[in-house]
């Protein structure tokens, strides 16, 4: 299709409408040749552009994984930056194929907004950061503290709940963005800064004297973040769900980007690996993809553990521990259903 603005607007309005609506999302993506991925405008560790404009990050890697599964090319993704206000509407209106923008899976979003959360790629939770000079070691000791809080988010409600349950008082200092919260907290406008723990860790990593700030042990909310697709196209949802599961399963079975080609060359002793990598069975065909789709995905972006270590792991500036996001065999919550 012509991309020129004039043609796009003046001519296409009537023509394209009838054709496009009859296609499934998978057909649309394959016809277009690129995946439209709703992404964050910029969140440390999860989505950020380098000096050449190439995006990388934890959420970005999942987009690249889906693009590799469907199109065979991790670069065949167009990232559509979405704000927290526009993200679900843009997905519902068909402006993006999949939304991977650290969105919390909640009841109303899954049902009322007519969206489908197809999995969890990061288990987050709300926490508190304080200056060590405050001498606080637990959030329950924060009676009377001033708290910087982003307005209009679920964190605001979680905060109110937590302080009410523990029967202590606080004074909110409303901020609009994470950037503003960071500045206010550093300037001493509030004693405590609260947001998701991954965000707190990323923020703390940028401080000049990071050692004099601690993240308190209490986690006061459940924030399962995951990829989202539209209601009504379950085949597409399956592809995204099982791409994520393939990353998780690959880590569980020890398949990495380094050894995946070798393991996929011939059937191994482990039938689970064989089915995942397509050397046994016809799992790829069942979701409309080639049989070696998972091989391409793991070779391009690595398994879940590799993606985690590269972008937000302990050796990166964000420096997050695996915690809840460890495999179920290591005491975490990651548990991929079997590939069979």
């Amino acid at each position, binding site marked *: 299709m012509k991309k020129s603005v004039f*043609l796009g607007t003046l001519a296409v309005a009537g023509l394209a409408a009838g054709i496009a609506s009859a296609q499934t999302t998978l057909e649309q993506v394959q016809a277009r040749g690129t995946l439209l991925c709703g992404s964050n405008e910029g969140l440390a560790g999860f989505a*950020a552009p380098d000096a050449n404009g190439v995006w990388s990050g934890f959420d970005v890697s999942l987009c690249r994984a889906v693009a590799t599964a469907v199109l065979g*090319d991790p*670069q065949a993704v167009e990232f559509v930056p979405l704000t927290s206000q526009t993200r679900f509407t*843009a997905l519902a*209106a068909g402006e993006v194929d999949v939304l991977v923008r650290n969105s919390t899976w909640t009841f109303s979003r899954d049902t009322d907004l007519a969206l489908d959360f197809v999995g969890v790629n990061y288990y987050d939770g709300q926490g508190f950061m304080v200056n060590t000079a405050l001498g606080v070691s637990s959030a329950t000791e924060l009676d009377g503290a001033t708290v910087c809080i982003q307005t209009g988010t679920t964190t605001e409600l979680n905060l109110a709940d937590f302080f009410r349950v523990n029967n202590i008082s606080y004074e909110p200092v409303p901020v609009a963005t994470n950037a503003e919260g960071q500045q206010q907290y550093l300037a001493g406008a509030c004693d405590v800064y609260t947001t998701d723990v991954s965000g707190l860790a990323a923020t703390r990593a940028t401080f000049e004297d990071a050692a004099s700030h601690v993240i308190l042990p209490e986690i006061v909310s459940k924030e399962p973040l995951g990829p989202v697709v539209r209601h009504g196209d379950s085949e597409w949802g399956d592809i995204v769900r099982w791409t994520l599961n393939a990353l998780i399963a690959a880590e569980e079975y020890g398949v990495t980007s380094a050894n995946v080609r070798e393991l996929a060359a011939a059937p191994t002793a482990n039938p689970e690996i064989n089915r995942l990598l397509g050397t046994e069975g016809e799992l790829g065909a069942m979701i409309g993809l080639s049989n070696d789709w998972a091989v391409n995905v793991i070779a391009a972006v690595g398994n879940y553990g590799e993606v985690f270590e590269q972008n937000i792991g302990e050796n990166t*500036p964000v420096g997050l521990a695996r915690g809840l996001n460890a495999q179920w065999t290591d005491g975490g919550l990651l548990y991929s259903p079997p590939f069979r």
Partner: protein
Amino acid sequence: MSETHAHSAAFVRTAILPPAAPPPGQTGVLRWMRENLFSSIPNALLTLLALYFVYTILAAILPWTLNGIWDAGSLTECRAIRDERGLSTAACWAVINERWLQLLFGFYPIDAPLLARLFYADELAAAGGMDAVFGPGSNATARIEFVGTMRAELGNALVFFFGYWRPLLALALLVVAVAPVLYNNLPRGMLIFSLIYPFLAVFLLWGGSIWGPISVALGLALSLYILKYAGARFGGLLGGLAMIVTLLCFFFNPLSLLGISGLFPLLPHVSGLLGTILPFGLPAITSDDFGGFMLAIIIGTSGIVLSLPLGIVLALGRQSSMPLIKWVCVTFIEVIRGVPLIVWLFTASLLLNYFLPPGTNFDLLLRVIIMVTLFASAYLAEVVRGGLAALPKGQYEAADSLGLDYWKSMRLIVLPQALKISIPGIVNTFIGLFKDTTLVVFIGLRDPLGLTNAIRATGEWNGIYWELYVFVALLFFVFCFFMSRYSMYLERKLATDRR
């Protein structure tokens, strides 16, 4: 007479004394200071207070700015260098040094093949030549790596001039196209280029086949020709109808209600045919890749250029004696003006999709430009109406008494005077419009402020604020200051009365 006088007087000065220098303290800097800064005790106190104020501000800002660190790879490195030099405060300009191209152009793709051919030929040959790296079916990951190392080695200046030659050329030609409109001592022939420029700019910025913009221009020219020809032959009404039919056939599908498609619109057929005869074009770039200050300029200039005529028409319509036209204009102005711009932008980006048929590819950037134009034109209409109302009634009556029809009296008598009165208000609206373009960050377009957020998200630059905001503010200031200066020049030039 003078002779007798000379003889009778005891002494006549023959040479004029040279003027003596004024007493010290009544001259130069000292006098100026005494008159302007220390004319009385309260004024002297205020002066000292102001000086102290300026000093404290500069003492805080200047060391930070001038000691700034330009060469570092991350904020942490910046801080290390600062401590090494023993400075208490220093700006980390390194982020601007690394990312200024991104702040200017967003993610607009560079012309990597051109750069590689011109400056990186040896490495290109080593990587397998042009086709292996950039040709169809080449490995995207390898290409991105190649372009990344090439950019790093060539440096930002080369990439700026040769990688971004398309937007730069479009900007340079914009200056050429706008100059004859702004300054009337330039040759009038240049106005032809101003008319061609919009199509040229679309071709340069978005790329694609050159025949697309040319076909659009041809369609518009054809419609105008038919209006003129049929209007002269069959009268104005039939001419107008013929033009509308031509426009419909060329750009839309008038038979779509009957379910017939394929024949109309004619536009894709014409451009497709021309494209097969003589294929020529630039690589196509989608609006999603547009960003940075370029986006502000594109939205700002299109909004300014399009909203002025629309605003004037709306203002005239509001003054019209025909009730239908008047009420349409009043409703339009009041509705658009009564709702915040951000709401219109959300409408453009989100709500419009629900009304359009699913799968419609209606460019987001174009939607935003349309909304910004409508918004600015509603404001302009009221500014121009102020100018129209300020004109004495005698001017309208004088025009009527000369026997001029409505359009002639407006064009020759009323509007030149009314617009002259409205210049400050019009430029005010334009500057406001230009700065409002930053609001598009809320609908996910990558404007300079949105990009600062994206840059901060990278591990290296997380936690950097002032440097990025100062840079963006400077860019906007330069443009707005130019507009304000131009409006003052225009007012001085047109000040033919009420001096």
